[in-house]
């Protein structure tokens, strides 16, 4: 009797952190973003393809927060972005960064930011840049 109980406890001990991690990565939205940390994340993970002031592999980001989705006239968007409609607000950006393909199938970015806090920090940074 003791062994099965210990086994169950062991399984739960292993499974709970995994479940918690899964819950962290999808479908949750951190409440507060830290723009300063978001700037560091941006410089590390986004700078490969994006800049604030210029279109590169991806579109410029200085005013992306609050911008209509797929609306820059001087950037060649995927059809998915061109037809998306809507605005890059906090909720849209969070869904997009969590899983771009799930949010807008046919997009080209495919880069996922799995941690809700990282997404919140990035969004806070982008909002700060847009409000400058």
């Amino acid at each position, binding site marked *: 009797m003791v062994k099965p109980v210990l086994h169950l406890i062991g399984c739960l001990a292993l499974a709970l952190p995994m479940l918690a991690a899964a819950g962290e990565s999808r479908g949750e939205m951190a409440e507060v973003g830290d723009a300063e940390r978001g700037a560091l994340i941006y410089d590390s993970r986004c*700078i*490969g393809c994006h*800049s604030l002031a*210029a279109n*590169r*592999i991806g579109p410029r980001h200085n005013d992306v927060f609050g911008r209509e989705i797929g609306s820059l006239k001087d950037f060649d968007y995927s059809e998915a972005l061109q037809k998306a409609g809507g605005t890059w607000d906090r909720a849209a950006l969070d869904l997009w960064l969590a899983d771009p*393909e799930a949010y807008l199938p046919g997009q080209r*970015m495919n880069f*996922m930011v799995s941690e809700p806090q990282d997404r919140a920090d990035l969004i806070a940074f982008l909002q700060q840049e847009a409000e400058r």
Partner: protein
Amino acid sequence: MASIDTRTVPEIVPARRRFLQGAGKASLSATAVALLIGCETMASSASRQGASDPKKDVSILNVALGLEHEAINAYQLGAESGLLSQEVLPVAVLFQSHHKEHRDALMATIKTLGGAPVEEKAIGEYAKALGAGGLKTQGDVLTLAARLERGAANAYLGVIPAFADPALAKVSGRLAADETMHWALLASALGQPVPEKALSFGV
């Protein structure tokens, strides 16, 4: 620098031509080998698995190709800037040759998968987008290169889960490793500290 006319700019700096021609020959044969081995493997793997969405893989590979086009031009701008020392210039050119090999392998793979490779832009467009006109010292050039290499490494790591074909996901990991190697050497040359924590890439 932003007004460079690519039709008249040689791919290499004249003063270093002899060295670079030698390097070019060496990288060409390496590229040919990489293409023959790497792309054949990638293509056969993709067709064998009947990858669930090759169009999506082509889309991801084309973003990667755009990134490689930019990296090649960024190093070209650095090489032509006159800011790099005799010791640093050959390393920059070597890194550029790695990116050219990446470009060639990506283009071949995209074509094999039935896609159309994204085209390179004029070097002046890269110069403008990267703010090359603001580069005043060797440190500025290396700092820009290090930022781009780290960003590229993270980009390649970040798209790994999106590939339909696991063989292409592995290639993305290998590309990330090259970019990380570049970043590590650039960061060392700049005197930047080694990251205190492990798993600092690809979060």
